């Protein structure tokens, strides 16, 4: 298959299959979780569950000082990684076109040069995350194959996107095809790895926050 054929497949059946598996897969995981139910709490509440849930949804976005002081670099790197990824994904013109096509609305884009720089920083941050994972004894101990698979499928779209934009290694058409294919790989793999956290983090924060709000405790 040459670059044009690969690109046509990636924009055609490839995308359909990948998006279908992603959406269906994530919904499946979500329903599998919800099905297990949550027994209502009969103890008298001290505060508001929903308020606590919302507060926790927001509060966990920042680290606690006690933990931050112990692992500042690793924690900061986590932020760089995520924020960089979101900037590249959501603020690059051609990407916004995609979101607009099914959301019905778009938003302003950042200049490509900035996206390119942020992309490079994010790739470096991902590499740093891998280095941390391999060298920190706690994370190395609890890591499984899943962590490395998730890392790889997250890196590839960033890397191929950067390479396409900068005309590295292969023709633009080929790199764009590889970029789309790597995104499709990410979509297909995501529901079966820890990448489900992109949705389940909200559920976890909500559940713990709700109980904390009810009990009037910090969360």
């Amino acid at each position, binding site marked *: 298959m040459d670059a044009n054929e690969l690109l046509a497949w990636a924009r055609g059946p490839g995308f359909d299959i990948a998006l279908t598996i992603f959406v269906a897969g994530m919904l*499946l*995981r979500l329903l*599998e*979780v*919800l*099905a*297990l*139910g*949550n*027994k209502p*709490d*009969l*103890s*008298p509440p*001290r505060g508001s569950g929903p308020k606590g849930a919302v507060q*926790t*949804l927001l509060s*966990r976005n920042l*680290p*606690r*000082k*006690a*933990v931050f002081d*112990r*692992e500042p670099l690793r*924690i900061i790197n*986590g932020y760089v990684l995520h924020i960089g990824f979101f900037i590249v994904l959501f603020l690059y013109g051609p990407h916004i076109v995609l979101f607009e096509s099914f959301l019905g609305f778009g938003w302003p884009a950042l200049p490509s040069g900035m996206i390119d720089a942020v992309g490079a920083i994010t790739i470096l941050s991902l590499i740093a995350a891998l280095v941390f994972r391999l060298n*920190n*004894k*706690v*994370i*190395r*101990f*609890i*890591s*499984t194959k899943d*962590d490395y698979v998730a890392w790889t499928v997250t890196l590839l779209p960033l890397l191929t996107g950067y390479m396409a934009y900068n005309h590295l290694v292969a023709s633009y058409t080929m790199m764009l095809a590889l970029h789309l294919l790597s995104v499709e790989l990410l979509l297909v793999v995501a*529901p*079966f790895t*820890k990448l*489900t*956290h992109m949705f*389940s*983090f909200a*559920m*976890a*924060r*909500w*559940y*713990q*926050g709700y*109980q904390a709000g009810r*009990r*009037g*405790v*910090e*969360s």
Partner: protein
Amino acid sequence: MSAPSVEKGIQAIKGQIDAPVASFFSACVHCGLCAEACLFYTETGDPKYTPINKVEPMRRIWEREYTLFGKAKAALGLSKKVDADTFAEWETLVYDGCTMCGRCSLVCPVGNDISDMIRKIREGFAAAGYAPEGLIGASTRAVEIGSPMGVKLPAVQAQIKHLQKNTGLDVPIDAKGAEYLVLLSSMEIMNFPEYLEAIARIMHQAGKTWTIASKAFEATNSGIQIGVSDIAKLLVSRVVDAADELGVKTVISPECGHAFTAIRWDGANLIGRPYGFEVKHILEVLDEFVKQGLIKTAGMEDAKLTYHDPCQIARKGGVVEQPRDLLNRIASNFVEMEDAGEMNWCCGGGGGVSANERADELKLTAFNRKKAQLQALGVDTLVTACANCRLTLEEGLEENNMDIPIVGLTEMLAEHLVEDDKEKA
């Protein structure tokens, strides 16, 4: 009934997994920050104490029982099983190396409540026969005798006699229609009898009616610690039944950590119906009395002192400001340790660890965290509001040749109580 078995253990864990637990396992990204919050990891440096690792057997069961993908993996032989070896290997992580202090739950970036998962996974370990001997013993004594330390009513009555002699005050037993039902922990009855005396004087000064129950004086709930809901229910029912029978308005949980959790948050869910009475921690009651002007204090401690937040009362119970408001009235040199408040470090002995002799060495190693906090401050006195914390801290201080006396907050407050018949300096 029937003998414990791995199968029973797995079934028990299966029954404990609910939507929150499933969402936690789905959200965990193996960031390892929970370890940085857990004193068992920070003081031993052993990554096996990473909180999310402690509940790995539950994760395996969740994945293979409750996810399609997990079922497929299991069918292909690609996932790890949970068997006798798993239970054996994880027993010390689930019991010895965890006090359910909840610090990990607070720091998890995705919002996982790992300490709650520990509580749930213990159901499986106990059902499989992998609960520590110490806790089995405590639970047995609690069920059969009425107290995990084997304290019977006569011992309580003896304490009461002492109290009557000292203060001239009466301790009502089974007084119907009293406003408050006061619970005690075995630890207090055995080691810190000043508590009951303090209660008696404070209640008298505040002009409140109160009582203890002869059939349910014990607050400590060993069922929570060992992780067997049936036993927890049995124990908490004694208190509920007594409170209902005596028609009290409020049940007061004493200076004990998990006792508060058991009666305040778990009880209604264990018995399957809401209470007909309120539950408050003694610190909440004291704070109320002070703020309502029912009791007054006089004089200040001038020793440099600090306050240790018992996990179940502060972080898990929400009683953080009240002890500080009370202390500030009676202490002129109250300094806070680093991480004070909701993020304070566990004493290392809660959640059943202190009843588990096998965990003694680990517990003392974990104490190094509290030691560091105290040494950084250089205090003369340590105040706390949990008898189990108190004992654990005393043991740790002794082991480390640190001469810092520990006082219960209620007891200290009572020392500064302004009583109508006699003035206290």
